[in-house]
């Protein structure tokens, strides 16, 4: 049974309000006082993009920079040596790289309430919060990260391309997004920059409810860290051997099964990655994670799409192997 719309709206707001504390330190090689600069503390929203932090980071670290002429858009962030991609939403980066255990409400329901607090832990039991990142201002890894520019054009282009792709996936054409007024598309980007839920919904609802069209597919991207992708393929690629390589899997996912039953996350994952999700109902080998939470395989993709999508219209699902 589809969830009532007020519950979906509640859920969307909760997800919108999710954020993660960050502690950013300046790379020793860029710092006049080597490793003794103060860390920058900030708590960005999960759905947003790290690139928006660059002006503040630059202003904060400028007094300590060996080369004070470097521009904010030449900076880049890394976690344990892995450069963080600008066009990945911040929450997705955390789900993929931080090592934090995702919260599993099903598991908690079955456990003794005294021990089942929602604490954030890594597999080894340490807490990965605040998430510790390193800011670099030299040696931009242009072979791994898309080059940014002073006007934020590259970030905007990458966002718009994703929105167009999501629209195309939903409807089989990009007419809806292409017919947005200039005001609407400007508002959409402004809502992303200023993180304004009402402004965002005012435009996004047009994309989710195109007049006269029934949505066909759900925009979904699945991220497999190296250990997961090795289960699925026989060849271990050169790229996969590099730390932090994530395999991205996409497939057209219809909203309904041929039987007319609604498509769930489980039926979709079982159909796209049967070696990792052999069961449509039970996560035997791996769990799908969205916004730091293990998503039940029975969740309807239609509901998920409307409440748990990121700002670009996609469900960016991280796969975490079990055991």
């Amino acid at each position, binding site marked *: 049974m589809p969830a009532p719309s007020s519950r979906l709206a509640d859920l969307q707001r909760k997800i919108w309000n999710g954020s993660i504390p960050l502690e950013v330190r300046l790379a020793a090689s860029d710092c006049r006082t080597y490793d003794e600069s103060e860390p920058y503390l900030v708590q960005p929203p999960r759905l947003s993009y790290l690139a928006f932090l660059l002006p503040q980071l630059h202003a904060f670290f400028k007094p300590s920079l060996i080369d004070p002429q470097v521009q904010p858009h030449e900076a880049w962030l890394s976690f344990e040596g892995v450069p963080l991609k600008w*066009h990945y939403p911040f929450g997705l980066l955390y789900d993929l790289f931080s090592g934090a255990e995702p919260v599993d409400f099903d598991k908690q329901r079955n456990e003794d309430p005294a021990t089942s607090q929602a604490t954030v832990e890594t597999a080894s039991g340490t807490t990965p919060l605040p998430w510790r990142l390193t800011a670099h201002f030299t040696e931009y890894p*242009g072979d791994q990260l898309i080059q940014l520019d002073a006007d934020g054009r590259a970030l905007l282009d*990458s966002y718009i391309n994703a929105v167009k792709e999501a629209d195309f996936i939903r409807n089989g054409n990009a007419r809806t997004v292409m017919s947005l007024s200039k005001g609407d598309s400007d508002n959409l980007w402004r809502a992303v920059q200023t993180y304004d839920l009402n402004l965002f919904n005012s435009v996004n609802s047009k994309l989710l409810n195109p007049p006269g069209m029934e949505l066909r597919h759900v*925009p979904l991207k699945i991220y497999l860290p190296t250990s997961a992708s090795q289960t*699925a393929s026989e060849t271990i690629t050169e*790229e996969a051997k590099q730390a932090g390589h994530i395999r*991205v899997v996409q*497939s057209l996912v219809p909203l309904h099964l041929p039987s007319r039953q609604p498509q769930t996350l489980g039926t979709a994952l079982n159909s*796209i990655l049967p070696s990792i999700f052999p069961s449509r109902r039970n996560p035997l080998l791996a769990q799908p994670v969205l916004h730091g939470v293990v998503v039940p395989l029975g969740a309807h993709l239609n509901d998920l799409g409307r409440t748990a999508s990121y700002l670009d219209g996609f469900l960016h699902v991280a796969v975490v192997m079990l055991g």
Partner: protein
Amino acid sequence: MSRSLRAILRRISSGTLESQEHQLSGSRENEEFVEDDDEALSRSDTSVDSPAVLYDMIHSPSYQVPVLYITFKDEAAGKRMPSVDEAYELLVPDAYRSQIEATGVVGALSMTDHPISSTPAYFVHPCQTAEAMEAVVGGRKTTPEEYLLMWLGMIGASVGLDVPVELAEAMSGPV
């Protein structure tokens, strides 16, 4: 278009032409992501000393058409990728470029993560491809090879990719 699409990956370097055949398959309605040999193609064994442009044709599950990806390899440039304008300048003569842009059937050059290597690459935006190909194919039945040749002629030409006669003959011959 028939169910199986044979994609020909080509590396064009300063003189040598290697081609490798990889099979991508998928049905139109329920797209199943099939593990294919593309992942066995290792970029790190490119024995190219001089700058090179690598073209990849990869089927897009979202747009359901082939998409052309372009990677620039230039050790001398270090890790810096050319900007969009620089890329156009390297690939397409100016006069030809204005012609291409006028037709409006070929999408613009954009940057993204290469679907296989996850590193930055340019791609020709596919939002117009399906419509443009329909106009060219005109309801005829085509083999995958014929489709790809037409696709290469349209999309490839916009970014300096010509199909050598030998390859065209090889693709049209008996499979």
